[in-house]
């Protein structure tokens, strides 16, 4: 083969290799690492939940914290004003986490109890998940 053509072929092969690697990485990573996001109503009505961690967003109510040996255990409910989900979480809650405010939790849902491994509150003190904001304005 002509040396110049050989070089071009080599470059194209390298480029393709990088591209294929990147696409494979992205596909695998996306398949394994996305979390489905639910509202409380969707979660209550969901038939078969994935075995992976999922996220739920809603308004916080009925917050209770108790000491359990050397850790803080919190229970609260997240509601979209139609349905609610009971959540338990062990660990420190974020500063902006308060009753009547919006929050998003991620974890596993089993036997009507959601065990959260992570709790996120929004930086904006007046934040509400979009579905609830609409309802609050309407009511």
């Amino acid at each position, binding site marked *: 083969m002509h040396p110049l053509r050989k070089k071009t072929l080599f470059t194209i092969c390298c480029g393709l290799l*990088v591209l294929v690697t990147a696409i494979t990485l*992205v596909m695998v990573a996306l398949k394994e690492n*996305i979390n489905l996001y639910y509202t409380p109503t969707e979660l209550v009505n969901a038939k078969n939940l994935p075995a992976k961690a999922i996220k739920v*967003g809603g308004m916080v109510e009925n917050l209770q914290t108790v000491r359990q040996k050397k850790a*803080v255990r919190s229970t609260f409910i997240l509601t979209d004003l139609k349905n609610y989900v009971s959540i338990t979480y062990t660990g*420190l809650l974020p*500063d*902006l986490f308060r009753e009547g405010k919006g929050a998003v939790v991620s974890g596993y849902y089993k036997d009507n109890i959601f065990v959260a491994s992570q709790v996120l509150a*929004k930086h904006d003190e007046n934040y509400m998940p979009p579905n609830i*904001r609409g309802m609050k304005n309407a009511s």
Partner: protein
Amino acid sequence: MLPEIAIFGLSLALLFAVMQFILPIMGFKTQSNNYFVLTEWAATLQFVVLLVCFSCLAISFINNDFTVNYIAKQSALTLPWYYKIAACWAGHEGSLLLWICIVAFWTCMLVFFAKRMPLAFKATVLGILALMNFGFYVFLFVSSQPFSRNFVQVGLDGSDLNPILQDPGLLFHPPVLYMGYVGFAITFAIAAAGLIHNKIDQQWAIWIKPWVLLSWCSLTLGIVFGSWWAYHVLGWGGWWFWDPVENASLLPWLLATALLHILQVTKNQQQLRFICVLVAILTYIMSLLGTFLVRSGVLISVHTFATDSSRGIFLLAYLLIIATISILLLAYRYPKLCQKNSLLMISRPGLILCNSILLLVMAATVLLGTLYPLILEVLGIAKISVGMPYFNMVFIPLSIPLIFLMGLAYYSSWQGTSIKELLKSIALPLVIVCCLTTGVIIISPKTDSVIIYLGVGLGIWVIISSFVYLFKHSNIKLRLPITLAHLGVGITAIGISITSHYSQTLDTIIDVGEQVKLGNKTVEFVTLESMKSDNYRILQGTFKYNKKHYIYPQRRKYDVSQQITGQMGIKSGIFADVYIVLGEQVDQGWAIRMYYKPLIRWIWFGGILMFLGGMLSLVNLIYNKLRLETKL
């Protein structure tokens, strides 16, 4: 009175912007240079008027003029004065005004400092900038006017600045980050003007380079500030969360880094011109996309400050228009830019091209991960979120070859190096790197994770190679900036590897007088006292770490909003940080979270080195230019 002056000023600035767009067109029609000089005047005046407007907003903030809606929302009587000034850009309307001001500022700088650019070319750049700024003026006047008043609510004390924002981070992070974001508008305009004038050559590369450097430096510093701010204020001990808003700042940074390197090839050898212009355009589009993501609230993000879909639609439309026009222009000039590249794979330009492609691929994967939830939601398939694991899984494998090639590029020459020569010159450094990495493996606690050592090894590889490069050649002044910036990458890589693996977390409940173990050191809860500050009350705990270092975490309750925020107690050190969060009172004790974060400072130190490298390179450019001028 001041808000009215400001509104008048804004209208005047808009008028100057329109002139700044029309004058160059008239200049080209009549072939008269006078119009081009007038364009420069319009640009300067626009900046001066905007500066007055922005000062009006700042003074109104200081005077507690709560009849202005924006001020009533973002400020309070008791807010300290420096936060009142910073509150100017704490909300959507004010940050948009800041954006416009910074565009005008950079434009003005261009007028005064780009002396070597021909008048006609400069006027084209100014015209494009005016057109782009015009879109933002419309946006400001239609949906986000910061000076709108409401005289009914007189007597209010203001609803106070979001307590989470009341931090020194707010003073620096947004303006510096915006300087970077907006700076890419200048590089975009120079790229577009180059396409219009069909002047994408070595000279063009010389004109655009200082602006790419300046913006890149600002963006780097802005990201470092942001990461540090998040670390010391949010209480989860992390420094990067792969949140959509963080990704929005990372995307232009990755592209700008690629641009900076490709530009060097274009400047020295007049090659890779097409990809250079393409990346210059994409960089600005990415910074616009970032603004869209932050301001529209379309994504599930912890940062969402404003959720208003009409703003989102406006920004999206603006983004699409800019993208379409510039890509069409690029396609039109493609035949002229296309050339037979005679790059050797193993040469400085070849390796730079390789790494630039890697950077672009990284940017593409980050973009995909950020937008994927949005696309699925719009298509109605599912509501999902893509989190940290995705990004780590994609980003880390791509950065390994990137960092390796970065070190390798030091040993190659611009004309090309044979594989034999290359192997000969990297043999000794590689041996040193292997020895040092083995040393690290021996002294660090045992772990199964190979990737940590790979990260540390690559970091050492870059550092060693940088020093080899610096001392092997005589012209240190020219090489120092490059060395500094790449040293920064090495140090950051080591910091990330170590801190992400060896950090320790402890969630517990202890009362005053009790002790716990963090790792193998003791932490004692010594006292708890309450204090009062200007606009909040403080509950401060005193902790004693390892029997000698005192750490003071606080809980603050803000008077106006009654909101509670934590102020982390951090004992920072070169080798490790100890980080304590004071939580709520539970039964007999306080909920406490503690972190041990080894080498976390290295991440930001590396970032600052990158910034310094960029600045030094800029100083070199200016120095050389001055020397040339005095010689002539």
